[in-house]
């Protein structure tokens, strides 16, 4: 369990998203450049006034010195410039690293920017190969596991241990799609039913194609600075109240527990730093790469008891009109999933809701949001708790 000790001192003052879904007209590097500039403008700053950049590499356009290449493209020489890779967890780990770097005096304000184009700049086969290469090269990959297969193993274990059903996993996809249907940018907007999920194409039992997140293009960026410097920003600053990490293993075959993840640790640390509990959270933005991952996070982050994630989802509490709105942009299941940047859109959606800019899907009184990201196969976890109060 780690605790950053930065809670309440740093704020998100800028954000940007590119077009998402199928975006063939810009490369991942170009998308990353675009959202970097737009996030800085959104913060009311110029690039010269921002002195740090943290990025994540792109599968579809790998660059050895990625952050440096993005800065160079912009003719920018930031004081702090680094590429981070912890898979899907890179997102919020990078946000926390930005706050830590500012705390250490390495920069005054930092852009965290990520983009990838798994849909338009890779073939389906390439996207599948690069993602499944997270498996152990000697003790997993030779057997031919896919990423859905890894989550199929997790799903089956949860079904066996707690009696969770395929219909309960499907509820996660149905809920996310209901939210996506209200978002004009979402990649998939047609409302679906549990029956639709259950009868969709089998991918890796018990998972069907509608249990799996999308393959997308897109990028997003946020700007972080000290809270006492945030008052000049044109938009309401969103405070980083708490952050935590948990790291249990890398390969799923080395997991000692298939149904409880290190999200327990990341959540506990984030709640402790924020001085909050799950009951205090008004908006949930969880990592829905596959429906069972989302269900297990609900349990591990304390929104329901262990084994009761299926009942929680089936109650409808996460859907539009429910008391615990979840993935209100549609998540990676329905909004977009361009690979490692996926969770950034959960963060930008939380900021959009807290700013009051969410249009038709705007929720009343979002004072706190919990954003969760994970890397590997439920391996490394990052939990970020945001506050909207000044």
């Amino acid at each position, binding site marked *: 369990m780690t605790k950053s000790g930065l809670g309440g001192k740093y704020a998100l003052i800028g954000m940007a998203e590119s077009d998402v879904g199928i975006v063939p007209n810009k490369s991942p590097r170009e998308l990353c450049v675009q959202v970097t500039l737009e996030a800085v403008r959104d913060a009311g700053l110029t690039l010269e006034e921002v002195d740090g950049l943290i990025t994540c590499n792109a599968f579809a356009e790998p660059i050895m010195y990625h952050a440096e290449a993005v800065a160079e493209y912009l003719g920018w020489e930031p004081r702090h410039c680094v590429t981070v890779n912890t898979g899907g967890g890179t997102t919020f780990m990078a946000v926390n690293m930005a706050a830590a770097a500012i705390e250490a005096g390495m920069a005054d304000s930092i852009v965290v920017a990520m983009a990838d184009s798994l849909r338009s700049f890779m073939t389906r*086969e390439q996207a*599948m*190969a690069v993602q*499944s290469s997270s498996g*152990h*090269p*000697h*003790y*997993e*990959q*030779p*057997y*031919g*596991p*896919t990423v*859905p*297969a890894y989550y*199929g*193993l*997790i*799903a*089956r*274990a949860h079904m*066996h241990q707690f009696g969770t059903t395929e219909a309960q996993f499907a509820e996660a996809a149905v809920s996310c799609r209901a939210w996506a249907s209200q978002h004009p940018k979402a990649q998939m907007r047609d409302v679906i039913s549990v029956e639709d999920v259950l009868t969709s*194409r*089998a*991918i*890796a*039992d*018990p*998972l069907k194609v509608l249990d799996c997140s999308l393959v997308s293009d897109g990028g997003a960026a946020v700007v972080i600075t000290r809270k006492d410097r945030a008052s000049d920003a044109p938009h309401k600053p969103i405070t980083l109240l708490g952050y935590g990490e948990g790291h249990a293993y890398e390969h*799923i*075959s*080395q997991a000692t527990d*298939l149904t409880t993840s290190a999200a327990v640790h990341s959540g506990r640390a984030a709640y402790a730093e924020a001085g909050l509990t799950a009951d205090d959270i008004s908006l949930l933005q969880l990592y829905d790469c596959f429906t069972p991952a989302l269900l297990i996070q609900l349990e591990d982050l304390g929104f329901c008891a262990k084994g009761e994630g299926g009942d929680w989802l089936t109650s409808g509490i996460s859907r539009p009109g429910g008391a615990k709105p979840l993935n209100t942009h549609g998540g990676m299941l329905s909004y977009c999933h361009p690979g490692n940047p996926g969770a950034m859109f959960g963060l930008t959606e939380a900021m959009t809701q807290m700013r009051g800019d969410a249009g038709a899907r705007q929720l009343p009184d979002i004072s706190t949001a919990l954003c969760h990201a994970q890397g590997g196969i439920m391996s490394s976890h990052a939990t970020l708790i945001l506050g909207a109060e000044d």
Partner: protein
Amino acid sequence: MAKPTPRPTPTEQPFYDACKNNELALQHCRDCSHVLFYPRTHCDQCHSENLVWQQASGQGSIASYTVVRRGVSADFEAPYIIALIDLAEGPRMMSQIVDTEPEALAVGLSVNVDFAAWSEDITLPVFRLHPALSEDSL
């Protein structure tokens, strides 16, 4: 693209040498008695380097399984069964369960190791449902 095939390190070579002889070998820690998988230079419990190879029973049980309906590449003909096997000696390993109908599978069922040639040099452990079970379950 070919099937991914291990290129063993010197540390790992005894595991693959044993597989080639249709034996499953596991490292045992002489200091803390922990049984390791995958092969390592150090015990992953006490970090001792005092490890010794011993032949395993080849028996285990299914911790979880999935039927891959869309193969990872053209080199893998779907459907095939990926499973996590809890070995009788303690460690868990990923493998395939072969020659079994998916309907016969369940978490907790007993399996026995078998071996399959993956390339000219590499033989890998795979698993089969315990003979008595595969008859009962069908």
